[in-house]
């Protein structure tokens, strides 16, 4: 999916791909990063011997030791504060915040420190840290273990928000995030952890700030993130049978996002749907829709369609949760509406 934009290390070429889970791809990226960067360390709750709540740091504590794979108490502000301070003096910390919902506990550290030290001290410091966190719903996690938090950070200059949709990108984007000199919020949708895909062995990076065209099409552009990407691809398959050709863009980096790829695609197709799991108001969908209208207005044959979560917290009961989260059916109908509106 991302082959065209994947940068291999010429000194250590990536080997042939093999089927790997999203979780294992992330684990590989951390392992490779720890080998390449002696001043990289991992920090978070239960990431040590236990290997993390979702097993992303599995075996790394045994391999790299407790000094570089650091278990912490339930102190998210101190976890991210530790990362910011260490990053300010040149280390490369990678934090795990077990559930994205807990980011509220360290919001100040991210928004007022990580995102601003480079700017407010005018370049005297950088904050090369990564905050990995498990986000998203669909599994009965309830109001505080299921949220999509990209909107919480979308309005924060200085932060990078990365959101992979498949194992190959998860690995390449995580390595690129580790190497980035900017602070990265790395979103891992929980429903994707067990998905599998072709992942090249060894070191490679997938560039930040670059979207991928996950599927080419001519009638309509769907811009999607994380779990909405496989749903959009399935929707495209479904509509192909009806003669609708859907181009699917996997945004991959939410901030700063790749407007060029989106706008080029919409200029070609003349129609767009933006698909994001978070609540509708003030989120990524609103931003992308506004941008497309602003810059592609005269190319558009119909208003931009939107697929989002409903404007509610996430309920626990699974039927209720399914009611509020967007799915493939919502994408299919948004595409149909947008196509019809433009005829």
């Amino acid at each position, binding site marked *: 999916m991302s082959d065209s934009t994947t940068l291999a290390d010429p000194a250590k070429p990536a080997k042939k791909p093999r089927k790997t889970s999203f979780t294992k791809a992330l684990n590989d990226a951390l392992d490779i990063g720890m080998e390449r960067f002696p001043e990289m*360390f991992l920090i978070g709750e239960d990431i040590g011997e236990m290997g993390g709540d979702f097993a992303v740091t599995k075996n790394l504590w045994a391999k790299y030791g407790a000094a570089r794979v650091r278990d912490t108490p339930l102190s998210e502000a101190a976890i991210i504060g530790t990362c910011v301070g260490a990053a300010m003096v040149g280390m490369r910390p990678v934090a795990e915040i077990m559930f994205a919902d807990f980011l509220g506990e360290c919001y100040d550290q991210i928004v007022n420190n990580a995102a601003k030290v480079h700017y407010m*001290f*005018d370049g*005297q410091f950088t904050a090369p840290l990564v905050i990995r966190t498990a986000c998203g719903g669909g599994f009965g996690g309830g109001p505080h273990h299921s949220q999509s938090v990209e909107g919480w950070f979308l309005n924060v*200059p200085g932060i990078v928000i990365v959101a992979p949709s498949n194992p190959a990108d998860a690995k390449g984007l995580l390595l690129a995030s580790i190497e980035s000199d900017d602070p990265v919020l790395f979103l891992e949708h929980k429903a994707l952890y067990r998905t599998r895909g072709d992942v090249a062995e060894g070191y490679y990076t997938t560039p930040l700030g670059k979207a991928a065209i996950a599927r080419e099409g001519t009638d309509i552009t769907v811009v999607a993130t994380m779990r909405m990407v496989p749903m959009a691809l399935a929707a495209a398959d479904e509509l192909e049978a009806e003669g609708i050709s859907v181009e699917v863009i996997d945004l991959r980096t939410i901030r700063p996002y790749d407007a060029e790829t989106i706008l080029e695609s919409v200029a070609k197709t003349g129609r767009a749907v933006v698909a994001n799991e978070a609540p509708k108001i003030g989120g990524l969908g609103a931003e992308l829709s506004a941008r497309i209208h602003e810059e592609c207005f005269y190319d558009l044959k119909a208003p931009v369609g939107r697929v989002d979560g409903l404007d509610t917290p996430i309920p626990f009961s699974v039927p209720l949760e399914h009611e509020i989260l967007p799915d493939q059916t919502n994408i299919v109908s948004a595409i149909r509406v947008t196509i019809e509106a433009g005829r």
Partner: protein
Amino acid sequence: MERDTLLGLYSDMWLIRAFEQALEREFEQGNVPGMLHTGLGQEATQAALASHLKATDCFFPDHRCHGINALAQQRHRGNGERIMAELFGKATGVCSGKGGSLHSADPAAGNFGDNAVEGSYMATVLGVALASQLRGQPNVACAIIGDGTVGRGEFHESLNMAAIWNLPVLYACVNNGYAISMPVGQGHASADIIDLAKGYGFACDQVDGNDIVAAHTKVGAAIEHIRQGNGPYFLEFKTWRWQGIFAGEFRPEAEVKYWREDHDPILMANEVLQSMGVDIAKLNATEQSQRNMIEEWIAFAKESPSPDLAKATANVYVSWEVAPK
């Protein structure tokens, strides 16, 4: 204490006082934008800390720390006027005018900058300390916090984490009796912040923050303790700020008189020095010399240009440019 050491600290305290008084004057004349929180009355605490912190150490100053920022800048970089220029929002400031009073930093002077969400850097200091520990460097990371800061959750997260990891952190708690208008004993379970710190099990001490001899000695002991690898240290300075609140003075008259007249750190040091045989004329000359230097800094700040407007969008990201207006 040696006479010359005390003379040096006396001079440092005058640098701080002269800096703050000149700044206050300029602020009232409308020459300094934003808000102003001065460290007047707390000069001994800041001079004591500055005298022991090396350029290779790190300190996170609080909002009343112009003085220690200027001292460290002058001592380690030889250009204290850049702190003044920063407060005027000028291009020659340490952060090109982008940080201001609440965010003046220069890592080469050990100054890692304030976060105006007071207490936020109690978490940040852990990372700097951890880096020193992992790299085997004997550096101290110091968080200068106020009594009000203790109300933040980061206070407890930080002390706990520093304790379990034995980090080289100096918590310099400047207890000036009030968090804006809230008396310390009303805002916290104890008016002695040390009582809240003791539960974390590492070395704690208190000192009269206006007694420069005592403060200098105790800061020295704390920093030595940390450099020897003995882990964190909590040192509470009992002091008092001259500045009232926006509405004016709100504290009891007797309290104001005690701290401003009977327990002024500079007057106290002056008396000790005279008892050591230092001539009053020499002490007056020290004051005048610092006041003269500060007026030069003020002139430098006023004459400096405003930042180039391109600075407004510079350094948001390392890897991406932000488009100008």
